[in-house]
C-alpha cells in the first residue's frame, strides 16, 4: 500500500527573457551625442522659419470694425438695434491690389461659441436629416427645444444664435457703385455639406417642417435660408454650416464669402469700395466687436507671423545650445568617450 509521488524540477528556464538578458540598445545621452541633433534641428527650423515668415508677410489683410459702439462709426446708429432692418454703409479704399482669391470673413470678439452648455445645445441627428428628431428634439437643446410644445427645428442654442448680418460689397467707379460678386459656395467643409448635414428626403422641403417652428431668434425659416438655390437651402445652407462649426476661441472670424468671380478673380484691385451692412446681430449683450476681414490666403492659411518667428527662435536656440554643448563636451567629455 504505497502511493506514488511525482517529482518535478523547480528550476527556472534559462532564457534571455526570463533572465532579463534580452538584447537591448542602451543609449546614454551626453553632450557629445546631442550636438549633431541640435545643429540639425536648429538649421532645419531656421530654414522653415524663414520660409513661413516670408509666406506670412506676403499675405494681405484688410480688417474693419463695424460694431459702432464708439459712435464715430457709420454703423453706430444701428448699435442699439432700435429699428429693425437697420442698414449702414462703410466706405474704404484699397491702395494696391489684394491678390486673389480674396476671402471675405466676418469676425466677432468676446463671443464664446466654445461655451460648454452652448456647444452641446444642438441635435446632430436632426441636422443629419433624421425626421424622427424633428418631432422630438434632443433634450440637450433645451430651452430651445420646444416653443409651447411645438418642436423647434433646428433646435438648440447654437442654431438659434446664428449670425445674421449680411453684407454687400460695391466698388465705386466714377461715382457709380458696381456690386462685387460674392461667392457663397464652398465656404463650408466638404464633409459638413455632404455628410454631416443633410436635408430630409422630402420634396418639397417645406413639407418636412410641418409641425415645427423656427428658432425664436430667426426671422426666416430654415427652409427659406436660400430660396434661390435648392442646394444651398435648409440644413445645407453654407452660412448655416459655417456657423454651426463652433469656433475654438472667443475671438474668431468665420468665412463669409469668397471673391473669385469675373473681374475679381485676380483679386481686389485698388480703388474705393463701399460695404453695405444689414446690421441685425446684437453684440451689446457681451461687449463684443464685429468686424469684416478681407484677406488672401497661402498654403498655410491666413496671416500669422507667430509660427515663422517661433521656428526662428527655437531654431536659433538649438544652434546656440549646440555651441554650449560643444563647450561642455570639450570640458567634460567622459574619459571613456572615444
Amino acid at each position: 500500500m504505497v502511493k506514488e509521488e511525482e517529482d518535478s524540477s523547480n528550476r527556472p528556464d534559462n532564457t534571455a527573457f526570463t533572465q532579463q538578458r534580452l538584447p537591448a540598445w542602451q543609449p546614454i545621452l551626453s553632450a557629445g551625442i546631442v550636438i549633431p541633433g541640435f545643429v540639425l534641428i536648429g538649421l532645419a527650423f531656421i530654414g522653415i522659419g524663414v520660409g513661413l515668415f516670408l509666406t506670412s508677410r506676403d499675405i494681405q489683410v484688410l480688417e474693419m470694425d463695424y460694431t459702432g459702439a464708439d459712435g464715430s462709426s457709420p454703423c453706430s446708429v444701428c448699435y442699439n438695434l432700435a429699428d429693425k432692418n437697420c442698414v449702414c454703409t462703410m466706405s474704404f479704399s484699397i491702395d494696391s491690389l489684394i491678390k486673389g482669391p480674396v476671402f471675405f470673413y466676418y469676425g466677432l470678439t468676446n463671443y464664446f461659441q466654445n461655451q460648454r452648455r452652448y456647444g452641446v445645445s444642438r441635435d446632430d441627428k436632426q441636422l443629419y436629416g433624421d425626421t424622427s428628431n424633428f418631432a422630438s428634439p434632443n433634450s440637450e437643446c433645451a430651452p430651445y427645444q420646444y416653443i409651447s410644445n411645438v418642436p423647434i427645428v433646428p433646435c438648440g442654442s447654437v442654431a438659434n444664435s446664428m449670425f445674421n448680418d449680411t453684407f454687400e460689397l460695391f466698388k465705386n467707379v466714377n461715382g457709380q457703385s458696381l456690386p462685387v460678386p460674392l461667392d457663397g459656395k464652398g465656404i463650408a467643409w466638404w464633409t459638413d455639406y455632404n455628410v454631416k448635414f443633410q436635408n430630409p428626403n422630402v420634396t418639397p422641403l417645406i413639407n418636412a417642417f410641418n409641425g415645427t417652428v423656427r428658432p425664436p431668434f430667426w426671422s426666416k425659416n430654415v427652409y427659406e435660408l436660400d430660396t434661390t438655390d435648392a442646394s444651398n437651402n435648409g440644413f445645407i445652407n453654407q452660412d448655416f454650416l459655417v456657423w454651426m462649426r463652433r469656433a475654438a476661441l472667443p475671438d474668431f472670424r468665420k468665412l463669409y464669402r469668397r471673391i473669385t468671380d469675373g473681374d475679381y478673380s485676380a483679386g481686389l484691385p485698388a480703388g474705393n469700395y463701399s460695404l453695405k451692412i444689414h446690421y441685425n446681430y446684437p453684440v451689446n449683450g457681451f461687449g463684443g466687436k464685429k468686424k469684416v476681414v478681407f484677406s488672401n490666403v497661402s498654403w498655410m492659411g491666413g496671416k500669422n507671423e507667430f509660427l515663422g518667428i517661433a521656428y526662428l527662435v527655437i531654431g536659433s536656440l538649438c544652434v546656440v545650445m549646440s555651441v554650449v554643448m560643444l563647450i561642455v563636451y570639450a570640458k567634460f567629455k567622459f574619459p571613456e568617450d572615444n
Partner: protein
Amino acid sequence: KGLNYLSQRAREKELRSLVSNLPYEGQEKGKQPNRFFSSNSIKTTKYSPLFFIPMNLYEQFHRLANVYFVGLAILNFIPVVNAFQPEVALIPICVILSLTALKDAWEDFRRYQSDRKVNNTPCFVYSRMEKQFVERRWKDARVGDFVKVVCNEIVPADLLLLHSSDPNGVCYIETANLDGETNLKQRTVANGLCTSNFNCKVVCEKPNNNLNHFKCYLEKPNEEKVGAGIESLLLRGCTVRNTNHAVGFVVYAGHETKSMLNNNGSRYKRSKLERKLNIDVFFCVILLFTMCLIGALGHFLWLESLPGVPPYLVPDSSGHLDSPGLTSFYMFFTMIILLQILIPIALYVSIELVKIGQIFFITNDLDLYDEETDSRMQCRALNITEDLGQIEYIFSDKTGTLTENKMVFRRCSVMGTEFPHKENDGKLVQQIKRAESSSRRGGGRKIHPYLDFFLALTICNTVMVSMATAKRERVSDLFCQRKPKRNRTRSEDPAVGSAKMESAADTNGVQTCSLHPLSQRDRPAAASQSLHYEAQSPDEAALVHAARAYGFILLARTPDTVSVRLPSGQVLDFEVLDTLTFDCTRKRMSVLVRHPVTRECVLYTKGADYAIMELLGTPYAEHLSGNQKDVAAVTQHHLDCYAKEGLRTLCVAKKVVSEDVYRSWLVDRKRAQASMDNREQLIMETSVQLETDLTLLGATGIEDRLQESVPETTVALREAGIHVWVLTGDKPETAVNIGYACRLLEEEDLVINMSCKNKLKHFYFIQLTCTSILDCTLEEVRRYEEDPCNVDTTQNIALVIDGNTVSMALSPDLQDRFVDLAKRCRTVLCCRVTPLQKSEVVKLIREKLKVMTLAVGDGANDVNMIQAADVGIGISGQEGMQAVMASDFAISRFKHLRKLLLVHGHWCYTRLANMIIYFFYKNAYVNLLFWYQFFCGFTGTAMIDYWLMIFFNLFFTSVPPIMFGIFDKDVSAEVLMGVPELYRMGQGKGEYNFLSFWISILDAFYQSLVCFFIPYLAYQDSDVDMFTFGTPMNTVALFTILLHLSIEIKSWTLVHWITMLGSVGLYFIVTLAYNATCITCNPPSNPYWILQSQMADPMFYLICTISTVAALLPRYLILPASNSISPSPLLQGRLLDRRDPDTKALRIQEWRGFRGGGEQVKRYRLSPPPSPTLDTPVDYVPEFDLTGDDFSLNVITHQSTVHT
C-alpha cells in the same frame, strides 16, 4: 434558526466532546451527533460564481481611489455639473474595475480548481454496514469518522491516532507540506484504547492554529480519563511514512484542521514607496482643487464681466439663468470631473501589473535558485518588491542564516580533560578503552564518567533510527537522483577527504540519504551500517554521529526503550521512563532512563552551558565537592575557548534519581499531563523540579560552518551602505568569532563589548550603571570619531552587546542613547537575545532612525523579528518553514541576499520609482484642458473629443510606462553586483522624492503650456473650429509624452520598440477610424473627419513639430549637460556596461579600490586568525572597567595583530 444557534454554540465551546459516528451510520443528518462541526470539504475561493460581481465590487471599493472615481462618475450624472456625457465618464473606472475583477476571477478560479482536486482525493473511511474501510472522497469524511491512511498517503483531516500497523504503536509522519521539515516525526497511538468497539468520548479543545500543540482526553465509559496530545495527532496535509497503515479518529475536519487554520494566504504590506506615493496623490488632490477653485472663480468673474445676456449663454429649460455665484459653485464640480485625470486613476492598477511582472522576474532568476533543495526564490508578499531597493539596516540571525546549520562535532571536554575530535588523535579512544575495562572490573556497578558522557550523547536526544529496510520510499529516490551531485561536492571538499573521522560525524548533506562509512577502527556489525538517524535538530544528529564514531551506537528508539551498542559490542536496552523535552525557557532537555544493569533511574541532561552550570548542585560553590568544582571551572574555561573558536557549546550532565524521588515526581508528572489548563506550564515545572543537583560530565563543541560566500555578501552589503546587525541567541564570544569570519568585523576595527553579567542586582542600580556606560561609550566614540588621525582611516566601530544589556538599553530612558551609539557603529552584534528582544531591537531602530529595515532568519525564533521589519526574509533551511511562513520573501541561501538586494531591489525600485514619477507627469497633461478654460469662460469645455481624451490615458499612453516599469534596466546586473555602491541611490530618499515629484509636475506644467500656447498662437484670429484646434494639441501631447518617456528608458529592447511604435500607431489608427465612422454616433461631440482634414494640412505638421521640440527642449538640454558635467554613479555604471568584459572587470576593480577604501574581498578562511585559540586564552584589552564584575565594557582593537 435555532439549529444555527445550536451549531454556533457547539462550535464556540471551549471544549468539544466528540463521539463516534458509527452507531448513527445511515441516519438522517439531524440525528448525527457531530453535525455541528464543519465537514472536511474545503473552500478557499473568495467568491461564488453567482455573486462574483457584487462581492468583487465590494472588495474593490475598499480602495479609496476607486470610490473617488466612481463618485466622480456619478457626479457626472447630475445635469447641472456634468462635464461629459454621463456614460463616457464611466468608461475609465469600468475598465479599471473590470481589469482588476478579471485578475481576481482568474486567481479565484485557480483556487477553485485546486479545492476541487483536494476535495475529491480518495480516502478510506470505515463503514459499519460493510464492516470494512470503503473508499470515499476527502470531502465526505466527517468529524467522528474512522479513517485509514496508508504509507505515503496524505492525511485527509486531523486524526487522533488509534491504531498503527507498527507493533510499537507508532506512526511516522513527514510534515513537509505543513512546515517544510523533512525529518520523520513519530506519533504514538493514544493510550489504552480498544478500536474494535469504540465507545469513548473524545473531549478536545477548540480548533486552533498551533501546529505543535493539541490537548484532548478520552473519557471511557467508566469515566476514566486518558490524556492525549500532539504526539497522537496526525495533521491534515502530513504524509504517512514508514508505516504500513494507521487508523485515526477525525477530530477536526476541513477548515477547522490545524493546517487550514495556518493557511492565511499571502500578506498585504504597504511599501515605503506606496506610502510616499499616497502623499503625492494627496498633493495632486490639492493641486486639482486649486485648479478647480481657479476655474470656479474665473467662471464667476467671467459671468460678472458680461454686460448683458449674450446669445451664447444658455438659460435652463424654463428660460431662467442661475445667479453667477451658484453657477460657479456648480462649475467647481464640473471642473473636478473634467480635470479628474490629474489624479492618476490607472496608476494603482499599473503598479499592480508592474509588480506582477517584477515578481515574475525575481522568482525566475537562475542565480536565486538553489540546486540542492530545488527551490526558487519565493515572493510571499506581492507588493513590496521595491522596498528591497531601499534597505538601510539588515538584521540577521546567525545560525542557519549566516551559517549552514549543519553541525560537525569538533571537540569535547570530558571530566575536565579536553579532546579534539580528529582522525589521528587516539587519546580519547584510549581513554574510553581504559574506562570500559575499569568499569568492567567494577562489575558494572559503577559507570565510568567517560562511558556516561558518551551514553548521554547517545541517549539524551530525540533522534529516530530508521533501518534501511524500513526506509522511506522517497529516500531511495532522492538518493539515486542526487548521488552524482553529492559525489561532486564531496570531491571538492578537502576537509572531508583528509579526515574520515570527521566525515563519520558529519551530517553534511542529506543525512537521511546515506551514512558515511565508519572508520576501520571499530567496525560494527553490518546491520548497523544501514542505520539512519532522523534528528529534529542538527546538533543532536551531530552528537549521535559523534558518539557512534566512538563506538556508542544508537540502535533503536521506541517511545519506551533505547538500545545502545557499546564499543565492547554489548547491547544495552534502556527503559525510557520519561523525556523532558526541550523548551526555550529551560534551554535544555533531559531523558530519564532506567539503566538495564544497575537498575538505577538516571537522568541525562544536555543543554546550553549557562543553563546547566546553574544547576550543578546548588548555586553556591562550597556545596560542590572539590572535584566537581574543579571540573566545572575547567570545563567553563574550555567552553569559553570553544566559544571563541566559534563553536557551539553544549554541556552534558547526569543525575541519579532515587526510586522514592522518582515515584513522587511521577505522580506530579501524570497530573500535569492530564490537566487541560496551562498544561505546558505544569509540565515544564515538573521538568524543572527534577533537573537539579546535576553532575557535570563534560561539554561538546560543535562547528557550524559558514554558508558559502557569506563574507563576500556581507562586504558587498556594507559597501552598499547597509548596516548589517547580527542578532543571535549564542554567546558573545561565538558571535564575535563568526563576526570576524564573515567579515562583519575587520581586524582593524574598534570593537566595543558591552555586557552585564549579574542580573540579580536591583534594577534601578543596573539602569543607572547602564546609563553611565552608554554615556561613556558615546563620549568615547565621539572622541574617536573626532580624532583627526582616525578621519581618513577606514577603521570602524563595532558594538557587541549581550541580551541583558540590550533589554536595558531598550528601556525608554536609555533608548535614545542606545540608538545614538548604534547608528555610529558600522555593525552591532547582539548576543543571547530572545526572539522578543530581536523584534524589539528591529522596531526600535526602525522607528527611531526612520530607516528601512530588513530581517533575515531561518528559525521559529526569528519569526518576531521578521514580522517586525519592513521586509522580512525567511531562509528555507534546516529549521523548518516557520520563518518562511512569516516572511515576505523566502530565499534558500544567505548569499542570495546580495543579488536580491543589489540587483533586483535596485531594479524594482528604480523601475517603479521612475514609472510613478512618469505617471504623475503624464497625467498632468490634463493641464491642456485647464489652459483652455481661460479661453472658454471657464465653462468646462474640452477641445478634445471625450472618447479620445479617455482613450488617450487608458490605451494610447498606458502600455509603454508599464513595460518601462517591468523591463527597464538602468545598469546591468553585472555592474550592480560588482559595484555595490550603486545601491545607495535607492536608500533614504531615493530617486522618488519630493524634489523629483515636483520637478516632474513643473515639467508637465511647462510642457502643457507649450503644447497649448504654440497651437493657440498659431491659430489665433483664424476661423479654426474647436476640434481642429484640439487635435494637434492631442497629437503633440502624445508625442511629447512618449518622447519624454524615451529619455527615461535606459535600455531599449524589442518590447519597448513595439509598445512605443504601437502606441503611436494605435493613436492614429483609432482616431482616424473613429473620425471616419462616427458621424452622429456620439452627440453632441462631433469629430467627423477632423484628423483626416488636419493630416492634409501642412500647418498641422508644422505645429506638431515645433510644439514637441519646444516642449522637450529643456529636458533634452539639461539631461545630457548634467550627464556630461557631473555624471551620477549610476551613469558611470552604465558607461561601464559599454566596455568589453575585460576592461569592465578592470574598471570595476579600480572603482571599488578607489571608493571602497581598498576593500578587496579577501579569501575567506575557515578559522579566522584573530580568534583566540586554546593556547592563547584571552586577549581582550580592557580600557576601562566601570563597575567591577557586574558590567564590563571592553574595547578590543586588533591593530597589532599579525595573523595575516
